[in-house]
């Protein structure tokens, strides 16, 4: 009896410690855990934009805090195109190039091209630290590939965000959709987070959920001087609603695009929202389920400067705070 009790207590303790440890074990995932997005998507360059990728590449930045001096790794989950997760067009024939950059030319604050917003410009700025082409490789299907180790000092130093590294995924051939995720980790074999690190992009191409109830989120950061934002979304297939939420906005219903189409909306920013994150919520259309919907989102301020989406929202996930005002009125 006593033995049973000890076993029971041990199992309970292990469960509890796993529960507490679980978020840490996830590392710095991209998409982030608060984003509730299944996969990033990049199509082979022979794909059609109506399938949900406007430019067939995707650029992400990792920011390593300045006080972190150990080596780290960038892990890619399911980097190949084939097998599980990926979107087949006919038969799998796509090759994707993943490249990691560091050094001068990476920091998007100093190199506008590095943001990767404009096709044909030099979004590969910086020193190439590592790269690899993935085709249909069962070895990496539903598994990890790890880049690194990297030394933080090999990044491009930004006084605000720390050492910046860039990873670019290009669909260099074929027409299938490569669905993948990134993890920033201190360990080559496990996902162990770097405290204070983050990841961001200026153009987010991702896969929407294949169910009605799941809501995806992305979290743009509203920097100093922003008066309004211009939200642009691509190839939404009229699949539901984008609600813009902040502590002061319960949910502005932003217009969404249709097939192979851009939609744009302008949303005023209130002064208290500056220096915090917004929550763009992507609600699926109810009724007939739109499956395998890949979409693109970008954001600009009133001057046309691109704003960042952070995988881990700066300042935390914004939660709307209702505010009741009561005042006396004359009886009617």
């Amino acid at each position, binding site marked *: 009896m006593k033995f049973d009790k000890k076993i029971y207590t041990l199992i309970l303790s292990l469960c509890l410690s796993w529960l507490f440890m679980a978020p840490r074990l996830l590392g710095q995932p991209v998409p982030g855990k608060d984003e509730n997005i299944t996969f990033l998507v990049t199509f082979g360059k022979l794909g059609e934009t109506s399938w949900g990728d406007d430019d067939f590449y995707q650029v992400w930045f990792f920011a390593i805090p300045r006080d972190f001096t150990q080596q780290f790794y960038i892990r890619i989950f399911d980097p190949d195109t084939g097998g599980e997760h990926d979107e087949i067009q006919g038969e799998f024939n796509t090759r994707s190039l993943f490249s990691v950059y560091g050094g001068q030319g990476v920091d998007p604050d100093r190199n506008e091209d590095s943001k990767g917003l404009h096709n044909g410009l030099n979004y590969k700025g910086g020193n190439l630290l590592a790269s690899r082409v993935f085709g249909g490789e069962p070895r990496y299907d539903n598994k990890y590939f790890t880049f690194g180790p990297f030394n933080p000092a090999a990044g491009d130093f930004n006084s605000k965000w720390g050492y910046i590294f860039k990873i670019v995924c290009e669909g260099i051939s074929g027409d299938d959709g490569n669905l993948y995720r990134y993890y920033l980790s201190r360990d080559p074999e496990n996902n162990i987070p770097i405290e204070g690190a983050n990841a961001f992009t200026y153009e987010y191409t991702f896969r929407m959920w294949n169910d009605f109830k799941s809501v995806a989120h992305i979290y743009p950061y509203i920097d100093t001087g922003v008066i309004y934002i211009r939200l642009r979304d691509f190839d939404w297939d009229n699949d539901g609603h984008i609600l813009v939420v902040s502590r002061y906005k*319960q949910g502005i219903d932003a217009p969404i695009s249709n097939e192979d189409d851009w939609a744009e909306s302008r949303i005023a920013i209130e002064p208290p929202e500056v220096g915090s994150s917004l929550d763009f919520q992507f609600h699926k259309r109810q009724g007939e389920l739109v499956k395998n919907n890949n979409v693109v989102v970008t954001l600009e301020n009133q001057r046309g400067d691109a704003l960042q989406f952070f995988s881990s929202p700066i300042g935390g996930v914004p939660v709307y705070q209702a505010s009741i005002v009561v005042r006396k009125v004359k009886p009617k």
Partner: protein
Amino acid sequence: MPQIPGIFRSMLKKNLYIIIFFLTLSPVMVSAQQPSVYQVTRMSFSSGPYSEISPVMVNDGVIFCSDRRTTGIRSRTTFEDKRLYNIFIIERRDTSDWRKPVEIKSERSFLFNNGPLCLAPDGRTVYFTSEVETGKVTKKKNFVNHSGIFITDLSGTTLSSMRPFQYNNTQYEVGHPSVSSDGKYLFFASDMPGGQGGSDLYYCEWINGQWSTPVNLGPKVNSSASENYPFMHPSGRLYFSSNRPGGKGRLDVYYTMLTMGSWDTPSLLPEPINSPSDDFAFVADDNLQTGYFSSNRGSSDDIYNFASTIIRKSSCETLVPNNYCYEFLEENAVKWDTLPFRYEWKFGDGDRGIGATVEHCYMGPGQYLIQLDVVNLITKEVMYNEKTYNLLVTDVEQPYISCPDQGAVGQRMRFSADSTNLPGWNIDRYYWNFGDETIAIGKEVDKTYLRPGTYNIQLIVSTVPEPGGVVREACVCKNIIIIR
């Protein structure tokens, strides 16, 4: 008799039979009176054989008119052997005694009648009554000189820079000026053509640096008898004297008030201010607690002081009706024209409302829990109690007058202070001033008005003495209209 020149005096003579008739009625009327709310005292500076009339209250004294002699050598008189009136000022020596009157001199002193008068709000401009003609013609024995108003500057005890009022006329009387406390209106008496009969009250408005054409106060104030000695009190009450029928006898003091553009039916001041004799030239302080008037109830025209036992506050807050109506709004939601949300309010009293902005009126004071549920119209999710708010609905902290806004003459009306909301006050007394020189004490009282008009009711509450002997007091007022 007061100084009532020419036609004024003849009007009084014509109405003598009316006065005699009412004098015969007076014992009956007096017996019906309640104990008087005024105490009157003849002023010690009123001389025996001479007349003192038309007091004007100044900082620490009284300006008045008198035909008293100022020198033992010569006594100035008119052709009718009436002594001339001149202007004097007397200051208080202390609370019970007065100094010697000092004459306020002008170029007209001892040549013409001077007074009655009034002081403009600036305290130095004097409007006074005198005679219009000053040339040789005035020396003819049968010449009838009419009174007019003159404007002059008072400096010490000297009047200078005299200029005539533009509506003086050699054909009729103009006199007895009274300037309103805001300086915008000049009231006066005149028997100019076009009046209601006898002497009437008129006013001019100060527009673009001059007095406008005189306007007759109309038949509600002016009668076929004579009205004169107007005094515009800062409260808006216009006091005047009239020898119309229905008074206590001869000249009596009445008051009226402008309500929504028309003058109320004048009310007669009670005894002992009014008497079977001539009672006139009433003036009072801002609180209507004390003042002066003239009367010939003694051997000659004298100035009397009155002190009211009625409490009437000069500063009294207008009653704020209790209001239990509120607007509720979701502050962030109202900034946007369309949001995919529905806002459902529970007001805490069983009622509900829908919208980013809603209004609701509660039945009365209380503590109410406001709950806001929000329905996401996209996800159909209901966020219950998205926000709550504790609303404390209270009555306004004030004494409270509960009574009808309107009543009729002769109707018994209930006045209640039950809804008074003064937390922490141990109220000892509820004092009602009904605005018609009557009072009552009690939390709930009844009152019957005898005359139509608009009455300003004051409710004054006071506490039992608190530690240190402090008695707290609060006053609210409310107008009610009494119709015939």
